[in-house]
């Protein structure tokens, strides 16, 4: 039986001041498993999120995101065309082409490179006892790891990081307001991808871009437009989410100094630390789905076309699965799943690399930046959509 809509909480998630971590959301989660939003519904509890994330009556629902924000034009067109918003055979074809660059075996071999890069970046500010974490670590690290993985030059990292940051605003609830800078960044990425493709067509290498360029020789396997669109996505996705998630992680550790000390003492906790950060403070604050048919679900009639936002932070911190303990504990022996990589057919392509590179970075940072603390107020993107620090000044004890 459907519940009368008027009794269900309404969350204005489109308001930039709205926070997925607010008392309002906590109260709504206490009251029921979902809330109404301007986009559709928000799913707030672990039980329902874990079932809906892989429910085959729903598809990845981000295709409607530009329309939800009344945005059209080049960015909206790119958004609809790239792999995240493709379904069925087209999605499978593209995913099969991209999988080889992101396999677990390949990533394991890259760990020494992650460590060397993290060490080099920390050397740049360790003696100073302070740094602006986003521009001095998170951005160069995320960007240069992505460059290494894709076989593109690392020395242009600043330009790529700036474009990625601007394109990332497309996933924020403020997308309409930022459209000019988002489209300028997309234009920059297109030019960069075109040059890269032309260069690889002239000179083949043993790398991932060449693999895609070779697939593109048969347009039915990969069209020119698909090649460019998805190269942009891979560069952007590798940079922006890792940058944000690392920043959110450091901010969390600043607020939990005992956990920072623990990570420095027990580096084997790095993989758990990454999972715990993504459970408590995910950059992907919601995973989007769209109903392809009408169906009954836990007392609600979900109608065809409804956008369903699965609130990852709300589900990950749901007291129903955690009992009384809602803290941040990287050494917890039992940890509920998190939804920071989504789930199902669109499960984050880069999750092995994200887990690997963030884990290695966090361990080195914890060892070399003891007693980390804020050095002025951090500035954050709106706390919904994809979020993260814009700037995060920190201080730490010098000389290690």
């Amino acid at each position, binding site marked *: 039986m459907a519940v009368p809509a008027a009794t269900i909480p309404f969350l204005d998630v489109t308001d930039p001041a709205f926070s997925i971590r607010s008392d309002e959301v906590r109260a709504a989660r206490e009251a029921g498993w979902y809330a109404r939003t301007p986009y559709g519904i928000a799913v707030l509890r672990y039980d329902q999120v874990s079932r809906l994330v*892989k429910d*085959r009556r729903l598809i990845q629902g981000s295709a409607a995101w530009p329309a939800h924000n009344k945005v059209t034009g080049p960015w909206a067109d790119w958004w609809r065309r790239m792999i995240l918003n493709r379904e069925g055979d087209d*999605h*499978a074809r593209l*995913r*099969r082409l991209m*999988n*080889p660059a*992101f*396999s*677990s*075996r390949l990533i394991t071999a890259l760990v020494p490179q992650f460590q060397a890069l993290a060490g080099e970046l920390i050397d740049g500010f360790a003696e100073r006892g302070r740094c602006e974490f986003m521009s001095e670590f998170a951005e160069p690290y995320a960007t240069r790891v992505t460059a290494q993985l894709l076989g593109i030059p690392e020395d242009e990292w600043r330009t790529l990081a700036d474009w990625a940051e601007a394109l990332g605003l497309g996933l924020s609830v403020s997308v309409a307001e930022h459209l000019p800078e988002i489209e300028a960044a997309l234009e920059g990425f297109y030019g960069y991808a075109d040059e890269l493709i032309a260069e690889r067509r002239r000179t083949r290498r043993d790398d991932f871009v060449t693999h895609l360029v070779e697939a593109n020789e048969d347009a039915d396997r990969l069209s020119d437009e698909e090649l460019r669109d998805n190269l942009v996505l891979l560069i952007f996705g590798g940079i922006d989410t890792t940058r944000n998630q690392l920043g959110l992680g450091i901010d969390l550790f600043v607020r939990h100094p005992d956990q920072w000390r623990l990570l420095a003492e027990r580096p084997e906790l790095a993989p758990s630390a990454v999972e715990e950060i993504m459970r408590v403070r995910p950059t992907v604050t919601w995973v989007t789905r769209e109903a392809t048919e009408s169906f009954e679900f836990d007392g609600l009639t979900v109608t065809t076309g409804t956008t369903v936002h699965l609130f990852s932070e709300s589900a990950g911190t749901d007291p129903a699965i955690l009992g009384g303990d809602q803290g941040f504990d990287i050494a917890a022996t039992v940890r509920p*799943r998190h939804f920071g*990589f989504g*789930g*199902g*057919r669109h*499960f984050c392509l880069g*999750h092995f690399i994200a887990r690997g590179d963030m884990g290695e970075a966090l361990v080195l940072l914890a060892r070399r930046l003891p007693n980390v603390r804020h050095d002025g107020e951090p500035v954050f993107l709106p706390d919904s959509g994809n979020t993260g620090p814009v700037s995060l000044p920190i201080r730490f004890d010098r000389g290690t």
Partner: protein
Amino acid sequence: MRIVHDRERCQLHGQCTIAAPDIFRFDDGGELEVDPSPDETLRADAESAMDVCPERAITVVADDE
């Protein structure tokens, strides 16, 4: 070759059905069907499925293992 599929770890993401559609498929009820001993010609697909599974629920082993 044999496919060892760990049903406890499996979260039904379906990445294997993309990487190796001749070995893994969803039935009408949404359950994963696995061919436990696929033809050797499918080895590349099988290993790709093993590599991409987010839960590391798939192992490809030799017939005599």
